């Protein structure tokens, strides 16, 4: 699995260099304010974990980095140059690959077509170049197997896969195409323990291959397993922003307002 990452990672990445820098970034959807005054740096060879309650603005944050929605306040720099992505293509062209929480796949298309969508392998240049279908099928199948996912038929429409299987395809795709930055929005939410483990390993492997990783999760335990840097959002604003050295799992869980409660809860529920 990790050979995929090593093969695809941009070899020029040097650990610690800032890949994405956000300064005072804000975003409103019409009348609804989703983000305000966010400062965040994604560095090569580091995992930046973003945590927060439902509706805190985590997905909005990564959609800005991914070029899905432009931000409407503040500045964002990629590789030191100021950008405001007007389409995800631009973000992808900077080597930023994303797994979205709610925009995974095109249901009617085959698994392998989904895997390569937007980055098809062709035997020529230009939009009319012929697809290398056999290669694409083989690679998609291989990459999925590496994650422990064996779909019954690589030609079946992805809409017939289970929720978790679809999520795996989206993750495998991002890992395969992410050359510099990998953004994962709650990648493990629909996954079982085993597959979650695989995803965490990928995350760590990406970090070690020198990529910058943004990892969004509700699970502070997962976050703490791989994170180098933690940001907690609340109502669109960052309420905690610390390096791993400065924060413990306990504080993280407490900040997520769940740690103590969960223990308490377990007493309560056991009666």
């Amino acid at each position, binding site marked *: 699995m990790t050979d995929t990452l090593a093969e695809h990672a941009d070899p020029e990445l040097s650990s610690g260099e800032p890949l994405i820098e956000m300064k005072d970034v804000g975003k409103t959807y019409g009348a609804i304010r989703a983000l305000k005054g966010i400062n965040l740096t994604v560095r090569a060879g580091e995992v930046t974990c973003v945590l927060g309650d439902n509706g805190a603005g985590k997905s909005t944050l990564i959609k800005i980095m991914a070029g899905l929605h432009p931000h409407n306040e503040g500045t964002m720099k990629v590789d030191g140059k100021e950008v405001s992505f007007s389409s995800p293509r631009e973000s992808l062209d900077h080597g930023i690959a994303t797994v979205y929480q709610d925009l995974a796949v095109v249901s009617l298309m085959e698994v392998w077509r989904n895997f390569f969508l937007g980055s098809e392998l062709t035997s020529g240049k230009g939009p*009319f170049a012929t697809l290398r279908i056999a290669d694409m099928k083989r690679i998609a199948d291989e990459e999925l197997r590496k994650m422990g996912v*064996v779909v019954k038929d690589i030609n079946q429409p992805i809409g017939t896969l289970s929720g978790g299987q679809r999520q795996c395809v989206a993750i495998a795709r991002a890992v395969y195409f992410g050359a510099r930055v990998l953004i994962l929005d709650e990648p493990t939410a629909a996954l079982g323990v085993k597959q979650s483990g695989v995803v965490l390993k990928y995350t760590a492997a990406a970090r070690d291959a020198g990529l910058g990783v943004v990892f969004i999760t509700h699970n502070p335990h997962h976050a703490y397993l791989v994170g180098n840097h933690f940001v907690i959002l609340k109502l669109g604003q960052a309420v905690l922003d610390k390096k791993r050295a400065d924060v413990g799992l306990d504080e993280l869980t407490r900040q997520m307002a769940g740690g103590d409660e969960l223990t308490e809860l377990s007493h309560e529920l056991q009666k």
Partner: protein
Amino acid sequence: MSQTTKTPPSAPAEASNRVTLGWSNRLLARPEVGALVAAIVIFIFFLIVAPAFRSPASFFTVLYQSSTIGIVAVAVGMLMIGGEFDLSAGVIVTTAGLVNAMFCYQLGINLIVGAVLSLVFSLVIGFLNGYLVVRTGIPSFLITLGTFFVLQGANLGVTKLVTGSVSTPNINQMQGYSTLDAIFASSFKIGTVTVEITVLWWFLFVALSAWILQRTRIGNWIYAVGGNADSARAVGVPVKAVKIGLFMTVSFLGWFVGMHTLYKFDTLQAGNGIGNEFLYIIAAVVGGTLLTGGFGNAIGVAIGAFIFGMTSLCIVYAGWDPNWFRAFLGVMLLLAVMVNLYVKRLSTARKVG
């Protein structure tokens, strides 16, 4: 890192659950198979009830009729796979012909120049349709309904203004006529039957479209854009460019048929072409294209056009009462769609192993 990797333990076990669908299931799941079965059923039916249909000449007349619908339907089918409609596809055929005829006739210019001008003009209209759709986000049904009305009015208004009547003057004495006639509207004999060149063009365009849809990157994008434009955009597909391109493809093939009509009949009525937009859509949908986008293919659309051409002419070959013409057509349409559906059900209902 890679050394630490181990194959997840249960993967091999899962592989045992893996199935490879039999060829018959794979075949049945293709969009065009239902249409093909429907076409064969209707074909046999008319061979029985319409003796006049049992000749090669009749068959080629049917092919010709299908091709004039089918050429534009190729593009409309692709557009529909891409998730959009074009209601102006019928009138644009006439617009293209009118522009060519009137421009050249009034100014006495070589027809070839006019044809090129008309092509540019058509592409601009296609571009505008597409641009307005992707720019405003208004459903293409509405935008192209607007252009449909505008073109329909302009066809009539301009023709009336320029020629003083509702049809163009005869252009068959003008320079460049013979070349264009040979390209767009000639026919040749094979034995006793006459083959119109549009039939060949039709086959060519269908093959091209099939190849683009299945085998090229842009084809992949068309399916993605129609299946889920947001997801497609999120993985970097240039959604807007693809859609605009599809609208321009429609107007290109509309122009092509417009040229055929002009050079075959040498004159054009300004009111023509209205209503054909639905025939294209019917052909596409009967051929297995999903109205909501993301599914379908070129062969299916071609079969859809053939079913339509065959039905509409065979009703005449069978000598049925023309008052009931539309009713027969409706029944055939419903029949074709139902057979299509039934075949698709078959393909998923069958057990494997």
